């Protein structure tokens, strides 16, 4: 990653020398001349893509990756062969499609989508930026240079952070850093953001194109509005006033809020499209089910429990996976520990315990809560159930200790 600032600077220099680029809808299978500005951009993105393949948060599950590729191909049609999807285990709603076809989908998006139709819509939106060559339009408008300069300033700010902890930089750069605080390195973000910050018009265009693409692929076009509404609802569910008062974004690189008129425009277009497409709810859930525990744990580690609870409510709406989902609901309340939260945690763990898919840890947590409440018999029974369900658990001896101390004191 250390070489990146240099290559960004080189890219900025190259852009300064070249004239405006004629942006047009791209053709499937086309590759730019390597000596062209677009060719240079592809080269940069090829490097970022090569790095992505070795990153710690890349999800390498073959079934999940194949499923994502399949949805993308439905949306992208003949361009499918030009696109490569990578699922990154990052607990934020985000997707991006670079001009060279390098596409990222983050686990936070898959966890938040209610069904395949919503995933297809978001991919359609990104495909809209891709096929309309929005990144190149940004070149043509010479705004990319400003973005690259911004990216470079982030890199400088990062390098300077050692001597000036708490240094501030432009608001533009700041929002990228804030959105992803601590989870991903800034150089990577700066690089991506330079490419994926579009104009308000381009965002609106991508919204509508994404919805049409998803509709043409046979998906319910109402999923478009529902994806964006889900994000707005999650912002409103935050534990933090400052977050609740901020505006939702369609991705961490989107500098334009998900405004009422963006959703209204989707509603207007939906009335002109064929209704009643498929949702693919069961397929989506089957694909993400193996990852629910890890992704929900990642989400809890963001420690905005109000938002995680909103995500869980959405996942639980269809009445599936209630053992796992209620367990994580209990975890969110237990970790938040606000007024009345431990009682809510107990209720959630109890609800989980009645489901066949409840993790064994449900009973360990129930035991701890009952013990705190002074409900000794209930605590003892819960600990015993944990030990019966997970005799090989590495922490079984710790639970046995808790059980023994209860027995001694009774």
């Amino acid at each position: 990653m250390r070489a990146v600032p240099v290559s960004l600077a080189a890219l900025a220099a190259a852009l300064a020398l070249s004239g405006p680029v004629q942006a047009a809808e791209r053709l499937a299978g086309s590759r730019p001349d390597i000596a062209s500005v677009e060719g240079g951009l592809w080269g940069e993105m090829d490097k970022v893509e090569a790095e992505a393949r070795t990153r710690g948060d890349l999800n390498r599950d073959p079934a999940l990756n194949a499923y994502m590729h399949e949805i993308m191909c439905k949306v992208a049609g003949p361009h499918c062969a030009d696109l490569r999807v990578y699922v990154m285990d990052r607990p934020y709603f985000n997707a991006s499609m670079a001009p060279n076809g390098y596409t990222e989908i983050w686990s936070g998006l898959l966890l938040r989508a209610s069904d395949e139709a919503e995933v297809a819509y978001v991919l359609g939106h990104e495909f809209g930026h891709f096929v309309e060559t929005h990144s190149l339009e940004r070149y043509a408008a010479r705004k990319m240079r400003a973005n690259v300069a911004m990216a470079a300033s982030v890199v400088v700010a990062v390098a300077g952070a050692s001597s000036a902890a708490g240094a501030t930089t432009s608001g533009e750069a700041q929002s990228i850093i804030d959105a992803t605080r601590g989870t991903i390195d800034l150089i990577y973000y700066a690089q991506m953001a330079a490419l994926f910050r579009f104009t308000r018009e381009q965002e609106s265009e991508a919204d509508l194109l994404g919805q049409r693409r998803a509709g043409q692929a046979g998906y319910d076009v109402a999923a478009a509005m529902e994806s964006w509404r889900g994000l707005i609802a999650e912002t409103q569910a935050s534990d933090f006033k400052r977050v609740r008062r901020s505006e939702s974004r369609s991705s961490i690189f989107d500098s334009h809020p998900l405004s009422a008129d963006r959703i209204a425009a989707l509603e207007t277009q939906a009335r002109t499209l064929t209704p009643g497409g498929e949702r693919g709810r069961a397929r989506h859930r089957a694909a993400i089910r193996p990852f629910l525990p890890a992704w929900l744990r990642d989400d809890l580690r963001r420690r905005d429990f109000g938002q995680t609870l909103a995500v869980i409510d959405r996942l639980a709406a269809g009445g599936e996976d209630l053992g796992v989902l209620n367990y994580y609901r209990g975890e969110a309340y237990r970790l938040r520990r606000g007024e009345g939260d431990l009682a809510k945690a107990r209720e959630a763990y109890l609800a989980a315990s009645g489901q066949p898919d409840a993790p064994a840890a449900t009973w360990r947590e129930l035991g701890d809560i009952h013990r705190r409440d002074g409900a000794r018999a209930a605590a003892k029974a819960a600990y015993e159930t944990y030990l019966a369900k997970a005799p090989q658990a590495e922490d079984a001896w710790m639970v046995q200790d808790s059980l023994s101390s209860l027995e001694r004191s009774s």
Partner: protein
Amino acid sequence: MTTLRTTIRPLGIAAAALSLAACASVVAAPAGAFRVGSGYEVSLGRDWSDISAVMAGKTRKVRLLSIDGPLLNRLYLTDGLAPGDFLIKPEIKERPTPVIRKDMSASERLEFITDSVAALEYQRVELAKPRPGRIGEASGVRFDLTAQTREGLDIKGAGVIAERGGKTYVLLYLAPAEHYFDASLAKVEAIMASARLG
């Protein structure tokens, strides 16, 4: 996703202390007795560097030692943490980090470790093999840990979290799985064994 306007998070460890020698706020922690807090001492079997001043989310109660720089080996030593204290202090209110509570269960103590490590730049943090352990007179749980850096480098960890008189003591060692972890593990275990709480 939401956007907040605040100051840059000091990258502290990752960016600042790539080279220990270049950083003025790094001080020597010579072989011999090392005072972690009032009435809490460990014995260092070799020279370390005290890089507490450049760690991310630093607090008065947490010391960070290293031999070859924080990317290659880190040893966190905390004085007695009281309810409300952190291993890693949050930079802003909207991005909290794990906090010590007065009614923590045994599994919540281990969760305090894993979630604090996750609040640093590590991913896929997993705690393994919890077993009885101690820091001086404080009894608790000894554990191993695995994680990855964002760049995909495998990290291993080892440590103890122990409690005495309502205070929590943490000793946590993190290093790349390849070469570095094993190279200093015995030294760290000797430090663990040398802990004396007054």
